[in-house]
């Protein structure tokens, strides 16, 4: 059997296309595994790669809802932000344990998505987007106003990436060490997403996107499908947020804001919402361009906007959709 992407892939040359796809995936994994070896050679640095993995994870999580289920959320920064604060506050106030803090951040983001889900799942199209933004902004205001706990506008400091305890050994995580921790979790998330997409749950997501009426008249509670998608994406984005806070040992209300939500959406669209690797590729382009452009010009945001507009014009199915179309022709 094949992956879920089969639905949007070419039909006749299926077998050979899958062979090529598996080789491409293998290459990506190999490149990611060896990042600390080759990235400095081309002028990059390990923390940049870590950031790309984190945002790639967030975009992949969001895309479960956005590209696969067809729910245009403009508020997923909320769960990212909760992930960052959950982890930071846990380290400050509960116990200085890295694994527990990551779990705490992930749970905070995910459970919030579970709770928000029922309030958004009945909406369609633009109403869905609006209400997801509204919830995102709500969390933003809480973070700004609840000064005593969150540090308000100034953000939350006073926590850091404490060493990992493996057995009786204590391992401090430098840039490279942390990269591999994030890489491991990234791989886990990709595995989970891949499994979901080839399961009945994932098939149901895609069916809800394609034709909710048809699905409903098959006796399926489409809302529950959307809720599940919303919740799972919330957990993944929450985990990404948690990891981000540990990368920079800091978080601020900006991590809740709709700008960040929009950036996640841009990543998915840039790379290709209908492809497994698309959102990750979008994150590579987005974070890469952001890092490079912001070092050469103040106006990097407008350049990214330009890249986005051009790519939507010329690659409406994202970069991966484009590549796959060329491979087919």
């Amino acid at each position, binding site marked *: 059997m094949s992956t879920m992407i089969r639905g949007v892939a070419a039909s006749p040359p299926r077998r050979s296309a899958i062979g090529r796809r598996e080789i491409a995936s293998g290459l990506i994994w190999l490149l990611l595994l060896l990042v600390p070896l080759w990235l400095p050679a081309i002028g990059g640095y390990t923390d940049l790669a870590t950031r790309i993995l984190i945002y790639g994870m967030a975009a992949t999580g969001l895309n479960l809802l956005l590209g696969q289920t067809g729910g245009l959320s403009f508020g997923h920064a909320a769960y990212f932000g909760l992930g960052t604060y959950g982890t930071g506050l846990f380290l400050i106030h509960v116990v200085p344990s890295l694994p527990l803090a990551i779990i705490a951040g992930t749970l905070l983001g995910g459970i919030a998505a579970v709770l928000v889900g029922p309030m958004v799942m009945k909406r369609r199209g633009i109403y869905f987007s609006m209400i997801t933004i509204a919830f995102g902004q709500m969390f933003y205001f809480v973070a700004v106003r609840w000064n005593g706990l969150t540090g308000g506008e100034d953000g939350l400091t006073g926590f850091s990436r404490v060493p990992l305890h493996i057995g009786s050994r204590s391992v401090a995580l430098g840039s490279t060490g942390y990269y591999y921790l994030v890489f491991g979790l990234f791989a886990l998330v990709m595995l989970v997403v891949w499994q979901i997409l080839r399961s009945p*749950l994932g098939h149901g997501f895609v069916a809800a996107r394609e034709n909710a009426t048809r699905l409903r008249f098959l006796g399926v509670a489409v809302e529950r499908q959307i809720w599940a998608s919303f919740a799972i994406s919330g957990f993944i984005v929450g985990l990404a947020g948690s990891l981000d806070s540990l990368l920079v040992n800091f978080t601020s209300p900006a991590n809740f804001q709709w700008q960040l939500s929009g950036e996640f959406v841009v990543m998915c669209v840039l790379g290709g919402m209908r492809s497994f690797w698309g959102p990750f590729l979008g994150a590579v382009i987005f974070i890469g361009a952001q890092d490079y452009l912001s070092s050469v010009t103040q106006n990097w945001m407008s350049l990214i906007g330009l890249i986005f507009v051009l790519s939507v014009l010329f690659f409406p199915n994202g970069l991966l959709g484009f590549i796959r179309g060329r491979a087919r022709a």
Partner: protein
Amino acid sequence: MSLLVLDSVTRRFGALQALKGISLSVEEGELRAIIGPNGAGKTTLFNLISGYFPPSQGSISFAGSVITAVSPNALVRRGIIRTFQITQIFLALTVYENLRVAVECAMGLQLRPYIGRATRARVEARVDELIEVTRIGAKVDRIAGELSHGDQRVVEIGIALSRAPRLLLLDEPTAGMGDEETRHMTDLIRRLNRTNGITMLFVEHDMAIVFGIADRITVLDNGALLAEGSAAEIAANPRVQAAYLGDAAGARAA
């Protein structure tokens, strides 16, 4: 006992009476055609039976119990499955994926992030059955949106069959099809009824098909039940001839 019974069913849309006191019953195993001019209320009748909206008055019962206020979801689970006048399938998916998701949902697996080998095998076996019945085998790997209209209709029926319907409602299954496609669809309908024993209601404008395959025919006109009977009875009914076959069928043929 009749499988489906409508008792004085009326449906109003504001001032408009789309259906006026319709009573009819359909026997188990029957192949029933619903005919009538545009706007006669045929689709409305399907919408009522499938629970899309409730009747304004009157009651509907299915397999001995009243279903007037039952939700579409629950009716699907009881075995009332419909297709739509406008084809409803998953256009971006392949034919195989269309049928697979339908089967998975029919088996209640739609929230399962993982299924074991045995369950997967059951899903695949069921999909293969549907491919077999609908004879769509040559096209399983095609994207549904790229198929001809006729083939999309066949896929839609395949999807409907995934729920093992007790009553299948087909709204204009052959509309817009060429001769070859129409024949294929007509064969399929007849086969599902005769071989698989599925009770069916179908809306159809093509009189050759209606008279060719239907066990009984119900004629609606302007929301009212004009006539009901076998093909021979309907063909000989002077009211039907005057109101429908005369001008409507003539106009359509022209």
